[in-house]
């Protein structure tokens, strides 16, 4: 009798375990389906965005916008750009202006950018 009861209990538990696994599988199936739907939705949105980007980047669209805003742009050609070599005086002037420095005597009166940086 005991053996019978033990076997019965085991069978019942095994059956319950099987059923719970089945239920879990179904639940996970629902979750997967939901996730898939979300993924599809996001992919759809990505496609729509790609379309919008391609549309906005289309030369026709850009030209229409520029015309509407009365902006007349034209790309410079290679012959429209002349590379010139500046004189040494011009070079120094350009370097000074880029570094934000004046002539030597102003350094003495005003101080250098480095000195200002140290003070702060």
């Amino acid at each position, binding site marked *: 009798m005991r053996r019978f009861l033990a076997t019965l209990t085991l069978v019942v538990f095994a059956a319950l375990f099987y059923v719970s696994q089945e239920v879990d599988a*179904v639940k996970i*199936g629902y979750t997967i389906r939901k996730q898939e739907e979300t993924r599809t939705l996001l992919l759809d949105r990505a496609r*729509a965005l790609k379309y919008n980007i*391609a549309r906005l980047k289309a030369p026709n669209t850009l030209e229409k916008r520029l015309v509407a805003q009365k902006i007349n742009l034209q790309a410079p*050609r290679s012959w429209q750009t002349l590379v010139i070599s500046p004189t040494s005086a011009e070079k120094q002037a350009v370097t000074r202006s880029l570094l934000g420095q004046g002539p030597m005597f102003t350094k003495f009166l005003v101080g250098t950018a480095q000195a200002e940086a140290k003070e702060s």
Partner: protein
Amino acid sequence: MTEPKLSRTRLFVIFFFFLAVLFCLFIRLGFIQIFKASSYFSMAQNQSRAVIEMQPARGRIFDSRGREMALDVRLDSLYAVSKEVKNKAQVADRLALILGMDRAVIFERLSRDKLFVWIARKISPSKADAVRKLKVEGLSFVKESQRVYPKGETACHLLGFTDIDNNGLEGVELFYNSFLKGVPGWRLAQKDAKQRELISKQLEMVPPADGYNIHLTIDEVIQSIAERTLAETCKKRNALGGSIVVMDPKSGDILAMAMVPLYDLNNAKRSNIEHRRNRAITDLFEPGSVFKVFALAGILQEKIFGLEEKFDCERGNWAVAGKVLHDHHGYGILSFREVIEKSSNIGTVKGAMRLGADRLYKVIKDFGFGAKSGIGLAGEINGLVPHPKNWSRSSIINIPIGHGVAVTPIQLVSAFGAIANNGLLMKPRILTHIDDAQGKIVQSYDPEPVRQAISKEAAIQVRTVLEGVVSRGTGKKAAVPGFRAAGKTGTAQKILPDGTYSHDHFWASFVGFVPYDEPKLVIAVSIDEPRPVYYGGEVAAPAFSKVASEILGYWQVSQTLVPDAVVKAGAKTLKARKVTPVSVERPVARVVTGQ
């Protein structure tokens, strides 16, 4: 109180009653199990199983630089289970407002006694959201693919479009539909009581095979340049329409195929059917003076005479074969080079007569006229080049100057491409390859030489003459700043329905290539019925110049010539600033980037 005693007889009656009931049930069950099993089994399966069709994504179309020209987006399609829709009149009112449809049509659809009826397909997301907010029982959505064209009108005649079921109807979409469409898949799924799919009980599945992607030789920027220039030219010259075809002579790649009028691919159904025609492959026209180049090519190929051979151009009037041939200007003695540069009909015909009908016919055929170019687009036509057996007495006068023959723009551009490519005729190519979603090449279309139309030496000689047409002759307005260009103008009278030549309706054309030394572009411009100015040199040549100039700028091709104005301006600036130039001279044309 005494308990009622059931008699043995009554007990038997009750027992046998239940036994009989059980027996009946057993018989019934047996009947169901044995005889009705299959029908109930199929009913159960119908309720719990469903075959779900899985639509493939239609392949995308890219330009030569990988920019998307056509792709799919998924939109909602609205359907109704009409039996479940209550208050149909009210629902129809609301849907008509949201969808912008006729209320009567919606009401009629809702009133159909069907389980499934389409209300509106592929509606915008905003409209779909508005319908969802109504929360009407019996209305549902299903996702469907919608073909969209982000560039709108760009390359519309080439790309074509699809119908509501995503089948190609025109252009590349039609011709390569079998590659683009893909194969639908399906899955057999188990459903629960709420009709939700049980993914864990998926029974069988055949996945869909997405369509292949198509890679065109077209460059979106070049296409836009050609379309814009063509539209401006047609508007300025009051023309009915026209076409510009741009080709790479070395590979035969079609870089642009522009037609006017344009139509919006995203609203293709609303466009005029006439506007959808791809004129570059379907429109026949008599090429006029552009065709003189092929008489010249034949003469040089057969070494009939040299370019400096002199011809009397009869001061512009020459009676021959029972008709009088005219020149636009009256010329005296001209070399054959000058004959072509100045586009003299009389000189050309005299030269062609020495070449002879058979040899002229051969060279015309060798350049690909009178046969399909094999570009791989639906609707291409052969053109018309009559065999010398069928020539009339005046054919030797008409054909060398581009009358009595009919060509398409694609044939013209290919033939000039052969001249630019040292005599080697290339098959025009519109596709580079077809690949799948993973980038694996399914089919490759390599550049394909057709034949050596003329010798390299003859082609080089023809090119020198064509350069003269632009620098000294009728095509001066085709000059491209900073480059040496070559080409030929053409003005042809159109044929009226009664078979006579019109004196008011013309085709203006210019076909040429640039840079002259190392041609990178062949451009054919054809304008249909420009008014009041109709000469190819006045109407089509400036369009050639503009398109060529912008494309070379886009490709950053260094110029062979520095325009005088720039040299002067540069020298003035340098003098004023007392600086020395690093480099003003330019090397021979070369591509710096791109292409």
